[in-house]
């Protein structure tokens, strides 16, 4: 079995697959890759099942090496990535030779790279998933310099015969997320919904896998009472008593007591993973279905 060596872990590198849904009633969120489509794409490029575990590399400035030749693919954030000094294009399949260094520079578009390795990362499965849940503290700890992590056996599927999958880079400009109404619109002042949809928002640097805070005008509440805690989901936009919205992400607490005004649609959810601090953000009401 081959091994991936973490030469330089970077600011926050986590093992993630598609998570462990179905345990919210026991107090456990699903965790998993924040950008599900990026992990799935990287996996398919190396012939892995979409839900194999890979690495979620925040910001970059991380490097890896292997003891055997392995096929790799990168998706999600874009930045300068090299393997043995050669440039690695995103969304392509690349051979990382034994002893070569795979070096991730600072991400220029988006903030979370996904690295898939043919065979997948094979850290122990906990409750059906290898994902790190940063809130519950379950799954492998964030990776550290010098650590070795096991790579799984060759999957049956071959490397697919594609040179490059044309996927746009995450934008560095304004991002628009689609919303559907949440359960507690009636807890807010009459104009709060309009403000949410019309305002220019900005991604706060105080954002992580449990939630993306957004900066902008206060969403005034009509009902200032206390809401009994209720079930939450990734994408739910909770508003704290001072009117500040937070978009819950994959490691959110399973229940929460702040009213939810709106919920980001499933289709817009992956984009949360790539929001850069300070990036401009708008919301739009989803149509259809």
């Amino acid at each position: 079995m081959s091994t991936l060596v973490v030469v330089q872990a970077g600011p926050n590198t986590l093992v993630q697959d598609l998570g462990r849904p179905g345990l919210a009633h026991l107090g456990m969120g699903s965790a998993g890759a924040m950008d599900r489509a990026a992990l799935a794409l990287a996996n398919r490029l190396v012939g892995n099942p979409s839900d194999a575990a890979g690495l979620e590399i925040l910001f970059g400035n991380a490097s890896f090496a292997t003891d055997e030749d392995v096929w790799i693919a990168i998706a999600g954030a874009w930045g300068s990535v090299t393997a043995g000094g050669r440039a690695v294009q995103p969304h392509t399949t690349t051979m990382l030779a034994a002893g070569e260094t795979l070096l991730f520079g600072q991400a220029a578009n988006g903030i979370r790279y996904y690295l898939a390795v043919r065979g997948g990362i094979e850290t122990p499965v906990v409750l059906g998933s290898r994902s790190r849940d940063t809130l519950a503290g379950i799954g492998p700890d964030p990776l550290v310099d010098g650590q070795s992590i096991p790579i799984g056996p060759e999957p049956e599927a071959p490397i697919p015969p594609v040179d490059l999958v044309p996927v746009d880079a995450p934008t560095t400009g304004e991002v628009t997320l689609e919303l559907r109404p949440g359960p507690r619109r009636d807890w807010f002042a009459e104009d709060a919904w309009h403000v949410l949809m019309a305002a220019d928002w900005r991604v706060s640097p105080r954002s992580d896998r449990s939630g993306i805070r957004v900066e902008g005008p206060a969403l005034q509440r009509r009902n200032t009472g206390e809401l009994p805690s209720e079930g939450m989901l990734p994408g739910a936009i909770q508003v704290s008593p001072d009117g500040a919205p937070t978009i819950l992400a994959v490691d959110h607490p399973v229940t929460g007591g702040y009213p939810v005004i709106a919920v980001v649609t499933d289709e817009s959810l992956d984009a949360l993973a790539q929001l850069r601090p300070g990036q401009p953000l708008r919301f739009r009401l989803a149509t259809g279905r």
Partner: protein
Amino acid sequence: MRVLPFGDRAILAEYDSLAETMDAFRTLNAARPPGVRELVPAARTVLACIDPTQISLRAAEQWLRDTKAIHAVEGMSDSVTIPVRYDGPDLAETAEFLGINVDELISRHSSAEWQCAFIGFTPGFAYLAGPTGLEVPRRATSRQSVPPGSVGLAGEFTGIYPRSSPGGWQLIGTTDAVLWDETREDPSTIAPGMTVRFEVQP
């Protein structure tokens, strides 16, 4: 009962009381249609998370509306007994607040049949609803670190801290029972709808 929207993958049922919510959750959970991925009970609500490729939000809403909650009868739910040493640091103060003596508090807490309403706060932290007459406020200041196995009271609930965490519940006892173990197939000893009894341990 009200049904409220929750984006494109979920729908929220809201009830008038904790008892009604618990009955509704138990009834809904026993007859989940395909495509309902998760049911997350809370104090007044049940969140139904769906797979839109298998069931529409409209059909899920109809199911929530049509389900007539059945009240629990004895022996209907799984049960677990938790041995407790009533040695918590807030035991005397809690009894005093309730206007009863410590023995009476222990007797009421350990003779009652509690039922898990929902889990929240940390994995495996069960909110257990039981007899009236044991309602106490949270502590004015939370403790920075409550040891695992601490048995507490707060509001209308009793609960057990599965792991060390900050906490504001009134601590009345301690158990050695393991409440959460992620290496087990059923990681949580207590699940919503289960009946829980406490057994006095010297």
